[in-house]
């Protein structure tokens, strides 16, 4: 079919628009000069400075603790809920409830949790952020696993049940192994989202326990320094790697199954 040439203009504009700022950021992170705006030769000094930055390191540790904890909790709760929604109820209301945290604006969830924590007089800290991140992490795990369940072959589960297995046995021996790729994908999604999440953490973290996005937020507000360029480049490298590895992995598991 004929492709109008004119359409290629917005197509390329989109990609240039998406990547130009990122390229600039990466190049500037290797800047030898002090200014974050003018390039004065190659250097790794901002990476060295970053490595010595105590606040950034603390933020990173906090982020990883929260991400690991909330991912573990979200994966267990989300997987059970997905199986429950797909196999043990036909309620569309409960189905909707399962995806609501993913649709609800993060600001609304954030202030809701802040109000709840204040009401039960819970002190804020890493635990409050962890509990909060589990809410949306769980929604994404549920959604991914649920999709896999609707496409899964139910005859094995039926056979297991007909042979007298309890729901629990059927779940552990039959359903769970089939679901593993979906669970892994959901967990990876929850982990990545938790690491990047800012708005909810901003409302539910204690000032003494900021996560990395909160640290970045205050650095950016305080002023532009080449140190943030180095940090940004490292984060870009990590998330690009994770996305590409995940992409390869899903393609691999799909070709296997």
């Amino acid at each position, binding site marked *: 079919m*004929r492709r109008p040439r004119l359409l290629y203009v917005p197509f390329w504009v*989109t990609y240039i628009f998406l990547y130009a700022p990122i390229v600039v950021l990466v190049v500037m992170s290797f800047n030898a000069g002090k200014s974050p705006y003018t390039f004065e030769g190659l250097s790794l000094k901002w990476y060295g400075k970053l490595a010595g930055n105590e606040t950034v390191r603390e933020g990173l540790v906090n982020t990883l603790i929260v991400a690991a904890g909330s991912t573990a909790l979200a994966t267990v709760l989300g997987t059970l809920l997905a199986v429950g929604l797909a196999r043990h*109820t036909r309620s569309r209301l409960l189905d909707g409830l399962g995806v609501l945290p993913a649709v609800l604006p993060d600001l609304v969830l954030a*202030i809701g949790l802040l109000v709840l924590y204040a009401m039960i007089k819970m002190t804020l800290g890493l635990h409050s952020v962890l509990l909060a991140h589990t809410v949306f992490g769980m929604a994404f795990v549920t959604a991914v696993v649920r999709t896999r369940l609707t496409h899964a072959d139910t005859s094995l589960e039926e056979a297991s049940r007909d042979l007298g297995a309890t729901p629990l046995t059927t779940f552990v021996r039959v359903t769970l192994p089939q679901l593993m790729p979906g669970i892994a994908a959901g967990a990876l999604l929850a982990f990545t989202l938790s690491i990047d999440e800012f708005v909810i953490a901003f409302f539910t973290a204690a000032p003494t326990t900021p996560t990395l996005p909160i640290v970045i937020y205050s650095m950016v507000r305080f002023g532009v320094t080449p140190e943030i360029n180095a940090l940004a480049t490292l984060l870009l490298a990590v998330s690009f790697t994770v996305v590409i590895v995940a992409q390869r992995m899903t393609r691999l598991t799909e070709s296997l199954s």
Partner: protein
Amino acid sequence: MTSSTVSGATAKSRSRRSRVLGRLVFLSPGLTYLIILMLIPLALVISYAFFRRGRFGGVIYELTGENFTRLLDPIYLDVVLDSLKLATAATVIALLVGYPTAYVIAQLPAKWKTVALVAIVLPFWTNFLVRIYAWIVLLSGPGLVNTALGKLGLGPFEFLYNQGTIVTGLIYSYLPLMVLPLYAAIEKLDPQLREASANLGARPARTFASVTLPLTLPGVVTGCMFVFVPSFGNFVIPELLGGGRSIMVGNLIRDQFLKARDWPFGSALTLALLAVLIVLLLLQAWSSRRA
């Protein structure tokens, strides 16, 4: 015969028991979590909107409508209208750029299609604040764009801290969410329909207007929702790219909760935000049912 009825009855009761057990084991942990950490918080925010604020922050449990009458104050109403305007602008521009992009991607050979799609999603997987920060580096006073323009003898211009920059930041953050549903809708389209239209003598523009666009409308609506919803309640982009004044509802809500400590009024603002989003969601459901 008797024995078979008995075993039939026990099998029945066993299956009922296992059904109850199944629901208890699989549904209750997740649902309990969502009730405690999502529904109750939501209910609290909604109910706070009807209470009076305490003199030193906090809430006095005394029913009042004053938070809602305050919403109609031009100061606050303007902020809500400005947010609507900025989010709409971001959505419309993202659609105008995103539609042709998605269209071209859908026509690419299979191998390049995957590359193009991953390249659209990739920036989305990097930290949101980092992406906003990149624009500050590009656009600020002594930044790269001004340096380049200076070499041409132009400027320097003040690109940051205005509504245009906020819209740019919103588009940059959420454009992938526009392209993906559009791509899915265009990809599903049967090319024979377009060929038929062309064979019947329709010009490309006519084919687009009466075949392609109507059939991809659900994708358009979904993409618009995906851009509009996170744009409307955003407070980080207006803060970092807009110069820190309270210009969008998100900033106003944040300030009521963290600075002014007027939680009831903050809750009323949140309710207004939710109301706009619910109306949009209903519109989307209605349009996708019609399609």
